[in-house]
């Protein structure tokens, strides 16, 4: 149903008055409020986006997923391995390679030691590469999981697994599940917003944010950090705002007349959709205009209005979360270092480090970090073995690192260990399904109970898997 906030739009009622008065028309005996609000009996008119309560009181209300597409090297950034450095140039132990499948390299390629010095950060003394001074400065707000593992070692299937809990395409994405479970706090913006920066687009394409068999209103909506923020958001060129309003008023007037004669409540849903579209046209450009932020805030993120960058997207993510967008996912697909490991990692860290930290700090300062869960990581890790000469690593599903911050996760906490070469996660192993179960838990859902009936059975994000990672919860 149309949210009450819509009915107080003064700008709109200005032109509505014009339409009625100047055109000598009225909406008849039915007042606007009842026209839009009176048909709650029909399932079709229930707003699937209205806020809903989760299974139990939640720690987090919103999510910002920083998806580091391409898969960052855990060994060079988060998981220091002195033994690997010692064994640099040597063969990997044969027993590790039993049954191991690699993508590009021959598994028996030589080992390659970590490329960057590490440092202890924060009061907790969390170890990370010196390349990440800003994220490091937030160590006391972060839960670092060094024992992630996954099932897939090609990008698209692994990303789809991370995003939908399945390597098979066609399932709803995490953001869609959250939108389905919680609805949205803001009826003028989509519940699930996606943005992209970096060298490439995500390997998994739009299936990373598709709603699968959930109603398509739960699809992630792509926002664009330059140009038109949402596809087809701007009025057509040569059409003024007032003309647009006039057009929508006329459309809604005729639609309403149609409703009166045919009685289909779906018509009212469409009227509400046009109203929401108009409001989104008003609201979204303002929301997405990061130049409205004070200069010191822009600086904190390293944002530069008018550019396409991860920093801009982070700042934008905060603005969206502030306005009640439920789930923001930023894809930064730049981490596929088959070669140029050192140079690219330096560049990537420059591109994301400061902005990630600014996001944490900014949300904290605004009192939003407690209710916002931030997740950082890619679809898998990278091999301790070299690819190419001495400056690349291949895909590696057996171990990788992710970190979480905010809404209900411990700060300054390190979970899990890999073996001394960073090859296998060996302690407190966390599978992608476990991560997804934990995210849902933090949002107040039992991942086993959050289901949707499709194709003859109840589906859930975690399929038949998933254990909540209790150790990282506050």
């Amino acid at each position: 149903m149309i949210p009450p906030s819509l009915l107080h739009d003064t700008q709109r009622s200005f032109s509505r008055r014009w339409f009625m008065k100047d055109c000598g028309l009225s909406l008849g005996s039915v007042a606007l409020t009842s026209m839009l609000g009176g048909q709650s009996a029909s399932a079709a008119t229930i707003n699937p986006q209205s806020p809903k309560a989760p299974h139990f009181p939640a720690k987090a209300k919103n999510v910002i997923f920083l998806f580091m597409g391409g898969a960052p090297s855990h060994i060079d950034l988060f998981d220091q391995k002195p033994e690997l450095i010692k064994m640099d140039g040597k063969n990997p132990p044969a027993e590790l390679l039993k049954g191991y499948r690699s993508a590009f390299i021959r598994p028996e390629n030589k080992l390659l030691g970590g490329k960057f010095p590490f440092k202890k950060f924060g009061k907790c003394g969390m170890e990370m590469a010196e390349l990440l001074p800003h994220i490091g400065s937030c160590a006391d707000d972060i839960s670092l999981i060094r024992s992630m593992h996954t099932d897939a070692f090609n990008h698209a299937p692994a990303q789809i697994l991370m995003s939908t809990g399945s390597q098979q395409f066609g399932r709803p994405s995490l953001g869609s599940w959250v939108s389905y479970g919680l609805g949205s706090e803001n009826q003028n913006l989509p519940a699930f917003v996606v943005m992209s920066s970096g060298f490439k687009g995500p390997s998994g394409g739009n299936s990373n944010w598709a709603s699968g068999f959930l109603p398509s209103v739960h699809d992630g909506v792509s926002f664009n950090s330059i140009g038109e923020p949402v596809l087809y958001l701007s009025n057509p060129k040569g059409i003024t705002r007032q003309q647009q309003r006039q057009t929508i008023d006329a459309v809604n007037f005729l639609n309403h007349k149609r409703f009166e004669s045919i009685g289909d409540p779906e018509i009212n849903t469409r009227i509400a959709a046009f109203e929401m579209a108009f409001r989104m046209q008003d609201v979204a450009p303002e929301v997405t205009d990061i130049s409205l932020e004070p200069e010191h805030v822009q600086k904190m993120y390293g944002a530069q209005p008018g550019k396409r960058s991860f920093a801009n997207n982070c700042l934008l993510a905060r603005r969206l979360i502030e306005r009640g967008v439920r789930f923001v996912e930023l894809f930064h697909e730049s981490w596929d270092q088959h070669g140029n490991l050192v140079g690219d990692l330096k560049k990537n860290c420059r591109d994301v480090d400061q902005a990630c930290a600014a996001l944490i700090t900014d949300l904290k300062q605004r009192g939003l970090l407690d209710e916002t869960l931030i997740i950082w990581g890619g679809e898998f890790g990278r091999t301790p073995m070299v690819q190419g000469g001495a400056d690349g690593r291949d895909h590696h599903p057996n171990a990788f690192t992710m970190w979480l911050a905010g809404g209900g996760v411990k700060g300054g906490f390190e979970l899990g260990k890999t073996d001394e070469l960073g090859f296998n996660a060996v302690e407190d192993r966390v599978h992608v399904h476990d991560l997804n179960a934990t995210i849902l838990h933090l949002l107040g859902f039992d991942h086993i109970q959050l289901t949707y009936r499709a194709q003859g059975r109840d589906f859930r994000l975690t399929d038949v898997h998933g254990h909540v990672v209790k150790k990282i919860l506050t």
Partner: protein
Amino acid sequence: MRITRTAALLLLLPTALRAEVDFATQIQPILSQNCYACHGPDDSALEGGLRLDTQERALKGGDGGKVIVPGDPDASELIKRVTHSDPDEIMPPPVKKKALPPEQVALLKQWIAEGAKWGTHWAFTAPQRPPVPQVKKREWVKNPIDAFVLARLEAQGLSPAEPADATTLLRRLSLDLIGLPPTLEEISAMKSPELEIERLISSPHFGERWGREWLDAARYSDSAGYEKDLARMHHFYRDWVVDATNANMPYDAFVIKQIAGDLLPDATQDDRIATGFLRNSMTNEEGGAKPEQFRIEGIFDRIDAIGKSVLGLTAQCAQCHTHKYDPLTHEEYYGMYAFLNGIEETSLAAHTPAERQTTDRLLAEISIRETQLRQSSPEIEKDYLSWQQQLLALPRTEWHTLELYQLGDSGQKYWPQPDRSIINMGYANTRGTEVFTSSLEIPQIRAARVEVMNDPYLPMNGPGRSTRGTAALSEFVLRAGADPEKIEPLKWTNPVASVNAAETPLDHMRFPNDGNRKPDDRKIGPAAFALDGNEKTAWSNERDAARNNDPAVLTFELAEPFATGGKVHFKYNLVQRHGGYNSDENQTFNLGRLRLSVSATAPNALDQLPPLVLETLLLEPAKRTPQQEQRLFAHWRETQPRFAEITKQIETLYAQVPQPTWALVAAETKQPRETRLFERGDQTQPKHIVKPRVPAFLHPLPAGENPESRLTFAKWLVDPKSPVAARVMVNRIWQAYFGIGLLETSEDFGHQAARPSHPELLDWLACEFMSSGWDRKHMHRLIVGSATYRQSSRLTSELREMDPQNRLLARGPRFRVPAETVRDIQLAASGLLHPVLGGRSVFPPAPAYLFQRPVSYGPKTWDVETDAQRYRRALYTFRFRSVPYPMLTTFDAPNGSVSCVRRTLSTTPLQALVTLNEQVSLEAALALAHRILTDSGTPRETISRAFQRCTARLPDAEELDALEKLYQSALAEADVANAQILLQTYQPVTLDLTKHPLPQLSAATTVARVLLNLDETITKN
């Protein structure tokens, strides 16, 4: 609450019609939904040894004894447990949060009291044609559909709605049958509904509209999916579906051809194209992907698609374990897999009928000239024979084939074959050098040979991987040494190839050097280009469409033999630098399959013959086919200077052969593949061998056929004995007309499915479908001929409360049209539609950034059409799976990654943004404005006609007042500068609107936008 009451009503209604509880429709769904997860077919999940899915096991009971005492519900443990007050005893266990509602407990009690009679699940029992029910209001009934619907309504105390008015019905028929709104001319020439139905059903647009339904189920797409999401040229399959639908191909043949058309006797190009259904699976060509892994994923996908689209079964569960709800075992899943495991993912050089004709004509003409030449003098025949004899007298070179071992980490996979050739499968780079090592015992090296070979995996059989199956070799670099650590360059000379392209600049449109697609200085040409030390020149086998896919051979010599001293080690650099800049598009020019050999002696003319010519030469003349004979003669002719003139003429003819299309099809592998069951669906855990078999709970394989053939499996799918095939298809046809199928879960007819709203009608239609010879148009005629279909869709408040989804069918269908039809209505109403059929997919306007990084993984080509192609029906819009066309996605079109037999139907603000602001929507608005301004009459009259173009009806006075006043006020307020911008930005490419005064154009556009945005315009009313 009202919805629940309606649902309960629906559930309880059959009790009112039948005295006794029906196991299949009333009891089994309760057991399935609540009990089968732990007491069902999956023995690995079984609790307490109790199974409730078969009569025998259920009556036998579990570890704790009997649970059902027929005739005595109170003595039955089953009833005790579902009503128990102790949380440790009650079933289902409280953790499942699924306690049975009292009405279900009552049904279970009644069922046991009536003797606990069993029956199989309704959908797994072949449909029997039920008697057509007697109804009171007989005069309403136009055909048996109506009797079933009315019986239900009368039982409910409801009456059908009045018939829709003639115009509404015409628009409904037109949208339903051809997916386009009626034109003004069609409205004014309107005849009886029966005549209109015949007109529409025989329109070629019928196939476009109904083909689209099937293409969803077939997960049709124009790209490969996954990361690279390479463009495909798959439109022959799409057109086949449209043509077959127009030709009303019986549904059984329609399915058989798509699953096994290649195995039919004398399979035609069309029969093979039909197997494109199997090739709609995604293929992963990202770097490092293992082709075999994704071949297996492809089979899983095919079973999923066949399951949803033909069987109405969600088979996917059984990939990992025995199905929890339906009696499909893990073993049986791999039995079906085994039928499909022999599929070779191949392609053919597809021709349109016109291309076929041209090709045939040219080849016939060439053949005539060859024959004339050969018969023109006895001398020629003599010389030709003596040439053959000279060749045959030559010594045979002894070639030693190198077993190539790939080095490096490029992510390309060169798959070794038993004959020691290697095939570049999966990811193909566009510019790079791949290094291989090998070693061999040979006293000296004098020559090397590269065979460039065919393989069914390669585009149009290869031998290259370009979209034409051609290849280019930039440099031949083979080094050797006695010591593997000291490999040295060899001085190769005298390059000879069996085919030598003329020196040509590289086609910069197919293989662009960068995103600008400007010509660059790379060339292709003769064999010398592979040995000139210049990586900008390459040997290529590319010649003309008729001969591009012939295998080829290159030889090289050493001026001085290289003495090896026994064992020699090689490094071979495969240098290929003639592809485009973007390996995320089809810009590779790689060799597809090659074999490298060396010999101790110099090559002779035999070694340098084209492989197909050599093969013919070595055959006894009597055993050669005429085609082979012609090829041999042609080769000789080409080498004779005295025939230069006729050779030139023949080459001119060859050059005119049209380029065929690389169409993906399925074939059967020569070597059968072994199928093993995968533990938990995990292909790294193969278990025992499984033979082809079909699920035992369905009908048996047709007798008298090879029980292991894919063709038999295809016939089985649509065997008249199938309990599901006909029901599934008629249900989906029904769904397209009424928004919801008679069975709502059209993808799942299993135990978990909801009950059909009209079970007898579903069965009657299924039987009618089969007895009509699977005649789909007959089913369409029946449905649109029914009084049920022709009802007014007006919704009374009573019906809105009682039956919001219109399951009872007390009114006509009314819902928003599918995504494609939204676009088609905009184009048709505005007059922009370019209604030609078939051909390549087209690129209507879309924001360019969608197809560039970082939105798209890699840059994609989306060259927006600048002529009438821009306004083709949405069916023809190019579909990238990873970046689907946004207008279509916004209106719920699936992205083609998996089979979809039921779209969601949403109403969202983003849809409003599309129809209000998107480029083509605006172009349509301007075109409609153009019609308003060029139609004769007053603005009131022309606006009224524009309204009619959008909705088929005339506006009433109040509507027209509003629109006319809108026009007048827009005219008064028109801003010429803005109107100029509007015109510049959105003038349709096929129209010249500059003659209209800008204020009028602006005002008419305002009205046109309103009309095109009406709910009624994009709704079937």
